[in-house]
Each structure stands twice: as structure tokens, then as C-alpha cells.
């Protein structure tokens, strides 16, 4: 590993990375706009310039080079000596900042980026408070560049990150820089709006308030938001995300850096796919059927009721008549608790993997690339945890059964007691399952929305959306990724983990780590991640 000296301090860094990346990783705050580790390097913003020592062309003696070098475009080399703390470097930073603000409208009070804006942060840290600009500023009205994004040109610093993203990552190339010099603008080609499956990322990588999300526009000031590190439940890629909420309302999702899984990006489907969390039609209370009426049992009595019913059923019809469907929307912890509970009462029961929603085909980006060269992939499997649930159902023992086999067997009347878990944002119940379930003597359904199954169920349990739960998902590649709870369940509700924890015979508060520790005894894979918490990585 090469060693370089930054501001008289020696740091060790990875080979082949730019100096700026090495300095950022070692804790320096080097100002930069155009540099992004996931994009090509253009060295256009000139903010990250550094002083560097070079051998004298005649004598060969090491000395400070007369000009400044862009640290984003200079790869590290063993023994390199650079500095960011010199007067020359700081003067450049201040001058650059003054330039960036020449036409800036200074409308921070009404700008959504305020609070997480790098024009604000860098002005404060590297620039100065006064502008010498006396001419009137160029006023450039906002442009509607796509169905989900707005472009406020006069806030732009022309770092061209968005243009490079559309060219290199999404591969759709809708954005371009038009005009030259001080009249440079970001724009879309006529008649081609910014409308691709990854376009939301341009809002994330915009270091200023130029590109803004229409969905989040004017909703909240960012300093009110509280974050939770989560995993996207939209597909089996398992992107690391950040859930931003205020007063228990989720306002937006942002990607987190997760090398090898989603890197810096996430898709729009996941980004805007959280709306069902606050749907008014959600089931929030448990419902127990008594004749034709429904009643709501108190949560504390629930585990006794469920246990009693299943025990009665097993005593009458035998343990093999019990079938459980673990949904791939469940976390591993919840699936394990449910499997444990059922297998305890009915040791010969069938624990099957639930319905796996599939839509179209895997989409690889940049558009048109080969799947193994993809920088980002949206998977066709629209559930986060198929592999995890399969792991649990295998471990639970009994007959290994996928969803189609389960439906077939259920149709033949193999299960007179069923516990079916849903939790999908979209309607999902296949007709044969609904018909089979209607015939079952004891039917427990755990779902988010009412459907044909909940109408037939003897007991309906409210499932929570993934932002209301904590646990871990296993993505398509078998990576086990833990996620945190962002908001509390809707009023009257309880986390799935909590009631399953009580049913499985434990007392106290359900926490995912605690259950993972217990799981690790059966499934050693979970021992390794028991301690793992998502680590925030420098990113803007």
C-alpha cells in the first residue's frame, strides 16, 4: 500500500485511487463538487486543487511545484508529498467559492437543499461572507426537466455530475451541458425528458440545490428529518438506504454507500415505493372472527389465543395438517420466530416459502450493458428476502416446499390449519390459494392490506411495513444485511417481530440483535452479522 504525506502527516492509502479520495478517507475535508467516486473524473470545479512536490527538471531535487494540481485527477504514488493547508491552496478555494456564488440567488430560506448543501458548507468553511459582485445577477427560471425532477439553473455550479451520471451509470444520456463559459447550463435534449429508472440519483449527487425532487419539494426542511439506516425492500438487490422521517412520517429514501451491492445508487421504484406505508387502508388491529362478527383482542391476550387454537387443532387433526407460509417480505428474525412457534406446537408441520412477486426481467444499467458488467441492477424479484426465508424454512425442518407446491397441496386439502403471511404492497393472492384457504378450519393471515385471504381468516394479524420493523434481509447474492426501524407502527399496531416474539414464548422487548443471537445457535451465518451495524461512509 502506498504511503503519501498530506499536510505533513503520513497516511497509508489504497493503490490507484486519486489523492482526494485518500485524503477524504483519512479524514481531511477537501472541498469538491465535480469529483464523485462513482463517476468519471473531469477536474472541472477546481476546488480540490492542492500543492504537490515534484522533482526539479534540471537538478532533480524535490520542491513544491509552481502550479496547483487537481487532487481528484492525480493518482496516489508512494512517497508523494502534497498539502491542502497552504495559503495558496486556501486562496484558490476562497476565489473558487466567490466564483460559484456570482450568480447564485442566495435563496437558501426557500431552497430544499439548505441544510445539506455544499455551497452553504463550503462557503462557511472555505469561502467568505461578502461578494464583490456589483453587476445584476443572471436570473434563470427553473426548468421542468422530467416527471420527477426540477432544475433550478441559477443554483447550479456546473459540476456536471448529473450529466456524467446519465451518461455513465444509467446510460440513458438525457442530460447535457449547453452553451459555453458563464452561460453554461444543464438541460435535457428537446422532447427527451429526464425519465429513466435511476433518475432520482441525480438529485442525490447534485451537491447544491439545483436538481430537486418534485416528490419531496417543499415538504420538509432537512434539519427536521431523523434518519434510520435501512435496506430497500423493493427488490432482491437489497440496496442500502437511509429512511428520513419526521414525526413518524417517512418523507424520503436516500441511498447509502454499500460497495458491491448498490454502490452509491438506488432505483426510482425503491425510492418512491414507500407510499403504501402511510396508506389509510392498512390493517392496524388484530381481528378475531366470532361467528360473523370481528372483534379486536387485546395484544397481550393474542399469543394465548393463537397457541390454544393451534394446540386444539393439532390434538384433533394431527400436526401434519398445519401449513405455514413464510413471506419473503418478512425479515429473517420474524420468519425464524414464526417457524419456531409453529414447529413447537406442530412438529410435523410444513413451513413453506411464500409468494415471490416477479415483474418482467432484471434491468441492468447502463442501459444495454451485459449483466456482468452492470453498474446497477434492478431485479425482477420484487421482494427483499427470498433467500433468507428459504434458509429459515430449510432449517425449520419438515418437508421443503415452495409456494406453488404449497398451493397445490393446499388445494388438495392437505392443510386444515394455515398461517399465511403476506405483507406485499400490491395485491397478490392467487385464486387457488384463496379457494383452498376458504376451506381451512383454522386460518391465520398476517398481511398489510385486506384481501381475499383476510376476508376468510379466523384471525387477521396486521403486518408492518419494513420501515416500521428491524431485522435483516438476505439479498439475491446471499449477503445478510441488517436494517433499523425508522418509524413506529401505525396507531393500534404492533411490530410483527414483537407479537411473534411473544408467541414463540419469549418475554420482554423484541430486538433484532437479541433474536439474531438466538438464531445463531441454529444458523451460524447469522452469528457473523450479529454485531454488524451499518457504518456511514463519507459521501456527498
Amino acid at each position, binding site marked *: 500500500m502506498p504511503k503519501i504525506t498530506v499536510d505533513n502527516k503520513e497516511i497509508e492509502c489504497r493503490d490507484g485511487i486519486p489523492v482526494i479520495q485518500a485524503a477524504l478517507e483519512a479524514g481531511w475535508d477537501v472541498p469538491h463538487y465535480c469529483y464523485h467516486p462513482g463517476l468519471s473524473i473531469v477536474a472541472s470545479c477546481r476546488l480540490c486543487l492542492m500543492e504537490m512536490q515534484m522533482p526539479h527538471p534540471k537538478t532533480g531535487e524535490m520542491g513544491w511545484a509552481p502550479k496547483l494540481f487537481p487532487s481528484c485527477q492525480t493518482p496516489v504514488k508512494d512517497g508523494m508529498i502534497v498539502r491542502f493547508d497552504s495559503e495558496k491552496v486556501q*486562496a484558490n478555494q476562497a476565489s473558487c467559492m466567490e466564483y460559484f456564488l456570482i450568480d447564485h440567488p442566495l435563496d437558501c430560506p426557500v431552497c430544499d437543499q439548505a441544510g445539506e448543501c455544499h455551497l452553504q458548507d463550503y462557503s462557511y468553511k472555505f469561502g467568505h461572507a461578502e461578494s464583490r459582485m456589483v453587476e445584476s445577477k443572471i436570473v434563470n427560471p427553473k426548468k421542468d426537466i422530467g416527471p420527477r425532477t426540477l432544475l433550478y439553473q441559477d443554483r447550479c455550479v456546473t459540476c456536471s455530475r448529473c450529466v456524467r451520471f446519465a451518461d455513465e451509470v444509467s446510460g440513458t444520456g438525457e442530460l447535457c451541458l449547453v452553451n459555453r463559459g458563464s452561460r453554461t447550463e444543464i438541460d435535457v435534449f428537446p422532447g427527451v425528458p429526464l425519465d429513466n429508472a435511476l433518475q432520482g440519483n441525480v438529485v442525490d449527487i447534485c451537491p447544491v440545490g439545483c436538481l430537486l425532487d418534485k416528490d419531496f419539494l417543499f415538504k420538509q426542511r432537512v434539519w427536521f428529518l431523523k434518519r434510520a439506516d435501512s435496506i430497500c425492500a423493493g427488490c432482491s438487490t437489497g440496496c442500502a438506504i437511509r429512511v428520513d422521517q419526521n414525526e413518524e412520517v417517512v418523507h424520503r429514501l436516500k441511498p447509502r454507500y454499500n460497495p458491491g451491492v448498490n454502490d452509491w445508487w438506488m432505483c426510482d421504484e425503491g425510492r418512491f415505493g414507500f407510499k403504501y406505508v402511510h396508506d389509510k387502508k392498512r390493517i392496524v388491529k388484530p381481528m378475531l372472527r366470532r361467528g360473523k362478527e370481528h372483534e379486536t383482542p387485546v395484544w397481550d391476550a393474542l399469543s394465548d389465543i393463537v397457541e390454544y387454537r393451534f394446540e386444539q387443532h393439532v390434538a384433533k387433526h394431527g400436526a401434519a395438517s398445519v401449513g405455514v407460509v413464510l413471506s419473503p417480505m418478512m425479515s429473517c428474525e420474524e420468519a425464524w420466530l414464526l417457524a419456531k412457534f409453529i414447529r413447537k406446537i406442530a412438529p410435523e408441520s410444513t413451513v413453506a416459502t411464500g409468494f415471490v412477486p416477479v415483474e418482467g426481467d432484471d434491468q441492468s444499467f447502463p442501459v444495454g450493458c451485459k449483466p456482468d458488467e452492470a453498474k446497477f441492477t434492478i431485479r425482477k424479484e420484487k421482494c427483499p428476502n427470498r433467500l433468507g426465508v428459504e434458509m429459515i424454512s430449510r432449517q425449520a425442518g419438515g418437508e421443503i416446499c415452495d409456494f406453488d407446491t404449497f398451493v397445490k397441496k393446499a388445494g388438495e386439502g392437505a392443510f386444515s390449519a394455515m398461517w399465511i403471511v403476506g405483507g406485499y404492497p400490491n395485491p397478490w393472492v392467487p385464486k387457488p390459494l384463496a379457494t383452498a384457504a376458504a376451506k381451512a378450519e383454522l386460518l391465520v393471515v398476517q398481511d398489510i392490506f385486506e384481501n381475499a385471504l383476510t376476508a376468510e381468516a379466523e384471525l387477521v394479524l396486521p403486518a408492518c411495513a419494513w420501515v416500521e420493523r428491524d431485522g435483516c434481509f438476505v439479498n439475491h447474492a446471499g449477503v445478510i444485511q441488517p436494517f433499523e426501524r425508522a418509524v413506529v407502527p401505525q396507531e393500534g399496531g404492533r411490530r410483527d417481530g414483537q407479537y411473534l416474539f411473544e408467541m414463540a414464548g419469549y418475554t420482554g422487548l423484541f430486538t433484532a440483535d437479541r433474536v439474531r443471537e438466538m438464531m445463531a445457535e441454529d444458523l451460524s451465518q447469522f452469528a457473523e452479522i450479529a454485531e454488524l451495524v451499518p457504518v456511514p461512509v463519507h459521501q456527498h
Partner: protein
Amino acid sequence: MGGRAKVPSGVVMIRDEDIIVVDEPDLSAAERLYLPQILGGMRTTFRHMFKKKITVQYPEQKRTLRVENYRGVHRLNRDEKGRVACVSCFMCETACPAHCIHIVSGESPWEDREKYPIQFDIDELRCIYCGMCEEACPVDAIELTPEYHLVGLTREEMIFDKEKLLQVFDRTCEEKPRKNPRITGYAGTGDRPALPPSGGGH
């Protein structure tokens, strides 16, 4: 201190050397009679009966207030076109220590403005009338008025919405006209700090 059990963090123990025991002094014969003290108190009462009265007979009489800085009921100012002056920046909500301001903002229907408040509620019962909102406002849209007779029959009535706050402005704008907000300008103030030396090799 060797034998002391471990004190949980966050618990402050009082040390023995910090405790001072004070004995009450014994009363003298005159003090035990109490009469001199009672008479002394009565003297003060009688003296005040012949002084100038300072009690204000509210609500028949009202105090004259210093209009400029009295911190009474809030108002939302109107701009010169009669529209709500607020740009919905949430600075007041951020500064408010009592969390009594709730804003819902949206895209403004006017050309010259980006944002405006769709909803602007102040819980006047929760408010502590500190005036931080007024200080935080970048466009001087929220101000505290000299109005202080704040009455209502329900709690809901005391949550002032945008309309009600604009009405307070209409009521009080003659008594306390809106300050003309200085446009947040770009021009220097004259005492500009020295710029760093023009260096850099570009």
C-alpha cells in the same frame, strides 16, 4: 471513599463535607409576643392607603404599552400586494423553543415567489411569547403585536391559523406598521473584510 458502592452514571451524590447544619436561633421575649411584627406590617399597609394608586382597572382601563417591543399575539404580515408575506422557510418553526408553530408549505401561485405557506398554525397556548420567531424571520413576516387580551373558550380556538393571524395584522397594522424589510442584498456594507491575497497558480 473506599467503601462506597459504585454510583450509577448521571447520579450526583452530595458529599458529607458539603452539608452545613444550621441551628435556628432562640427567640427573645419581644419576638415571642409577635405584636411588634404585626404592627410593623400594618404600618406599611396604612402608608400605602394614602399613596398614589398603581392598580389598573382592567378591562375598563388599559395600560399604555411600548408598541415597538411588546410581545403579544402574533401576526402574519401582508406584503404591499396584500398577500401573505411569509415565504415558508420554517426558520420560525426551527427557532421556536416551545414547538408551537406548524407550517405546511407548497408551491406559491405567484410568479415572483417560490414557496408560500398553505397552512400556518400557532398554538397560542403553547407559545411562551419569547419573540424568537420574529428574530428568525428573514422577511419580517411574523411579528408580535401589542395585542394581549387573548381569550377563547376552547383549546382549538387558541390555535391561530393563517387567516386568523392575517386578521391580527389587519387589526394592528395601523398601531404598529410593518417594518420595511431590507431586501437581503448582495451589496457590501462598506466594512467588508479584507479578501485573502490573490494567490494560486491559475
